C-alpha cells in the first residue's frame, strides 16, 4: 500500500501549494493540458524548463547587480522575462516577487534590487523543492488503478461532485496521466 500512502502525500503537497499561494490556477491549466489525452510528462517537462530558465536568469541578475555600474535596463529585461515565465507556469509567489523587483528597478535602487533578488531566489528555491518532490513521487504514486484530481479552492462545486462519483478519496485528489 506504499503507492496509496505516496498518493496521499502528493495530494497533501499539491493542496498545500495551492493553499499557500505558491501556485495559482494557471498551474491547474497545465495539469488540464496533460489530462487532455496527450503526452504524459507535459507538466514535468514545462516545470523543468521553467526551473532551468529561472536558474539561468537568477544567475545573470546576480552578475549584473555585482557590476560597479548597474545596467538597470538589462536587469529589468531579465526580471520581466522571469515574471513572464513564472506567470505561464502558475508560479504565483515568484511572479509577485518579480513584480516588486521591477518596481525597484524603476527607481534604480541597487540595494533594493539586491534584496529583491534574494526574495525572488528564496521563493524560487522553495517552489523548486516542492516541484522536485512532486516529480519524484509521481511515478510511484501512480502505481495503482485510480486517477485522482487536484482541485484548488476556486474550482466549482459541481465539477467536484462530478468527480467524487468516480474517485475513492473525496478530499483533494491528484491527476497525472
Amino acid at each position, binding site marked *: 500500500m506504499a503507492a496509496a500512502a505516496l498518493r496521499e502525500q502528493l495530494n497533501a503537497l499539491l493542496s498545500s501549494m495551492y493553499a499557500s499561494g505558491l501556485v495559482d490556477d494557471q498551474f491547474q491549466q497545465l495539469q488540464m*493540458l496533460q489530462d487532455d489525452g*496527450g503526452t504524459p510528462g507535459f507538466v514535468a517537462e514545462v516545470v523543468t524548463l521553467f526551473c532551468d*530558465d529561472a536558474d539561468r536568469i537568477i544567475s545573470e541578475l546576480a552578475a549584473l547587480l555585482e557590476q560597479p555600474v548597474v545596467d538597470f535596463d538589462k536587469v529589468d529585461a531579465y526580471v520581466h522575462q522571469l515574471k513572464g515565465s513564472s*506567470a505561464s507556469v502558475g508560479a504565483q509567489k515568484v511572479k509577485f516577487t518579480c513584480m516588486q523587483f521591477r518596481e525597484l528597478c524603476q527607481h534604480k535602487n541597487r540595494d533594493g534590487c539586491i534584496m529583491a533578488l534574494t526574495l525572488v531566489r528564496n521563493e524560487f528555491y522553495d517552489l523548486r523543492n516542492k516541484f522536485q518532490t512532486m516529480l519524484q513521487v509521481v511515478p510511484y504514486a501512480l502505481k495503482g488503478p485510480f486517477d485522482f484530481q487536484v482541485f484548488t479552492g476556486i474550482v466549482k462545486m459541481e465539477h467536484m461532485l462530478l468527480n467524487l462519483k468516480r474517485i475513492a478519496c473525496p478530499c483533494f485528489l491528484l491527476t497525472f496521466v
Partner: protein
Amino acid sequence: MAAVATETPFHVLAVDDSLPDRKLIERLLKTSSFQVTTVDSGSKALEFLRIHHDSSTPISLQEDQLIYNQEVAVNLIITDYCMPGMTGYDLLKKIKESSSLRDIPVVIMSSENIPSRINRCLEEGADEFFLKPVRLSDMSKLKPHILKSRCKEHYNQQSDGNIDESSSNPTNSSSSSSDNSSSSRKRKAEGDAEILPKANRSRHS
C-alpha cells in the same frame, strides 16, 4: 473526381523567445488540433516563412480538382510581443509589408495589458491580441481568423477568372460559385468590409 475538402490540420507558426512559454503555446495548439512549428525569434520566423510559405502555391489546379497545398503553408502566426532584437510588432510589420505573407493572420501575445500597445498592433493589422498566460479557451479564437483569410484567398482566386467552378467548393466558406467576375468582386468587397480586426478584450476591460 470530387474536390478535396482539406482535412489536414491547420499549421500555426508560434514565435516566443521564452522556452517555457514556447512549450506551453505548442501544447495549447496541439491540444487544439493544430500542427505547430515553434521558433525563438522574429528573424527565424521570417526565415521559416520564406522557405516554407513563399514557395508553396495556395492552390494547385488539376482539371476539376482544387487542392490546397497545406503541407507546408503557414495558416496563422502567433507571436510574443516582447522579444529581444525583432519585437512581435516589428515582425508583424514585416509580414504585412510582404505581398506573399500579408494575408496570413497574425496574433500578438503579451504579458502586459497596455492599451496603446494593443491598439498599435491592431492598427498595424494584427487579427487578435492575447493577454498572457494564454489559455486553452483562447485557442478557439484562432480558427475563425484562418477561415476568414482562406475565404479572402478563395475570392482572390475566383476573381482571377481561371478556375472552373463546376466542382464543389473545398473551403469552409459558404461562398457560391459564381462565374460573374463583377459579382465575385462585389462579394469580396463585402467580405473585406466584414473582416475587421477584433481584439481579445475580455480580460482587460
